[in-house]
């Protein structure tokens, strides 16, 4: 015991099984000389068995998952044109084309991202066709950077004129005889608002804000994809145009593989494939 404490006090180098206690050293030596419960050879014989089961199983699983993802991407890509062609045949000539430009404001002003999605749709009701008018006029106005289909309706009353600015997201502004009405008083103009919506044919869509954020999400997912593909460096400005036919990044045509990845991202993020004539435009 004194010998042990001495080792500590004097800072001597410790040696295995040299404790200063002869009997303890004897027991430790006996323990270290005990035959092994499982020999190295026996253990090594067990390992290859494990290799063929657990290891290969994991390896196979990895390939199955990878294969499934690729297959899903291909199927999604292939299905989209067929679906489109079928619906086009059913509704010959009856389609509209609308363009929505959505501005995304990030935490910094310079991070503004404009996403343009051009989408061809079929089966339009007469009401929807009316809605196109303000949107079309807005498109023709080249000064408009971000177009959201906002329109203004003027309603004349005995005591003045009420101007209601509205779009699919709801009422943007009400001006009663030149005075801007605060939002908490919008309920006083309920009848006027209903009239304005009826006149323009615009249908209030409460989920519009949500879909806007979905498009932001899509833009972010695509940008992430470009970074992952090493097609884009951090902080680098970009101008991506993506269709089913081609993907052009900063004026350069991307490879077929990269284009397919971007289309897969679109399908995964939005839950549907890009329509046949669909186009996604992201720039920063």
């Amino acid at each position, binding site marked *: *015991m*004194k010998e*042990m*404490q001495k*080792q*500590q006090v004097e800072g001597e180098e*410790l040696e*295995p*099984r040299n*404790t*200063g*206690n*002869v*009997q*303890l050293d*004897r*027991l*430790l030596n*006996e*323990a*270290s000389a*005990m035959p*092994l*419960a*499982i020999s*190295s050879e026996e*253990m*090594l014989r*067990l*390992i*290859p068995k*494990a*290799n063929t089961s*657990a*290891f*290969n199983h*994991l*390896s196979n699983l990895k390939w199955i998952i990878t294969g499934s993802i690729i297959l899903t991407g291909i199927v999604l890509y292939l299905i989209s044109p067929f679906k489109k062609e079928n619906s086009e045949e059913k509704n010959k000539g009856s389609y509209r084309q609308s363009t929505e430009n959505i501005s995304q404001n990030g935490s910094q002003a310079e991070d503004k991202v404009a996403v343009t999605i051009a989408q061809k749709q079929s089966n339009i009701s007469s009401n929807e066709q009316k809605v196109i008018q303000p949107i079309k006029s807005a498109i023709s106005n080249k000064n408009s950077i971000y177009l959201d289909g906002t329109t203004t309706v003027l309603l004349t009353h005995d005591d003045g004129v009420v101007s209601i600015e509205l779009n699919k997201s709801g009422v943007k502004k009400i001006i009663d005889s030149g005075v801007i009405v605060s939002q908490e008083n919008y309920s006083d103009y309920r009848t006027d608002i209903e009239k304005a919506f009826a006149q323009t044919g615009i249908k209030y869509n409460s989920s519009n804000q949500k879909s806007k954020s979905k498009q932001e999400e899509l833009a972010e997912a695509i940008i992430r994809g470009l970074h992952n593909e090493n097609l884009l460096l951090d902080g680098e400005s970009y101008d991506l145009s993506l269709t089913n036919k081609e993907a052009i990044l900063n004026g350069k045509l991307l490879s077929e593989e990269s284009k397919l990845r971007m289309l897969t991202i679109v399908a995964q993020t939005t839950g549907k494939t890009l329509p046949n004539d669909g186009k996604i435009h992201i720039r920063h």
Partner: protein
Amino acid sequence: MNSGEERHKKFLELYSPLHDRLTRFVQVLIWDREEVRDIVSETTLTALEQFGKVQHPDAFLYYLFTIARRKVNLYITRKQRFVPMEIDINNEPIDYSNGAFELLNTKDLNTALLKLPEIYREPLVLFELSGFSIKEISGLLTISENGIKSRLVRARIMLSKQLEGELHERNAKTAS
């Protein structure tokens, strides 16, 4: 040769030199040889399954023994029937001159080791029986080398005391 075979081959290269150390570490703490075989096998298979996590060959020793320590300690915790001992290491020295200690065997050593607190038991077994250097134990347990040295000295004293306790207990049983 596919990547799975390469990985397997690499595993064997790293594992083979450590097998004896690993088994000795397990068997001195788990006396039951069947249990030892199970724990060593489980440790090895776990290490093989997650071998991809090992970034550098030098890390394999720590990786393997970390798995083994976890399994051994879990086993001991489940089987532990003893309250960890509290020993005042400043007690009077033991008298080894009477030859009574010669009656102790490796089973007694195992019993005494299991009664040591884990923080002393592990470095002691790794150092005395599994051929770990102080630096390696320091890396495995993430404690400074001086801390390990200090624990080893204390562990040796505690183990001697515990063995003395084993001897007294045996003598008491024999007398009764």
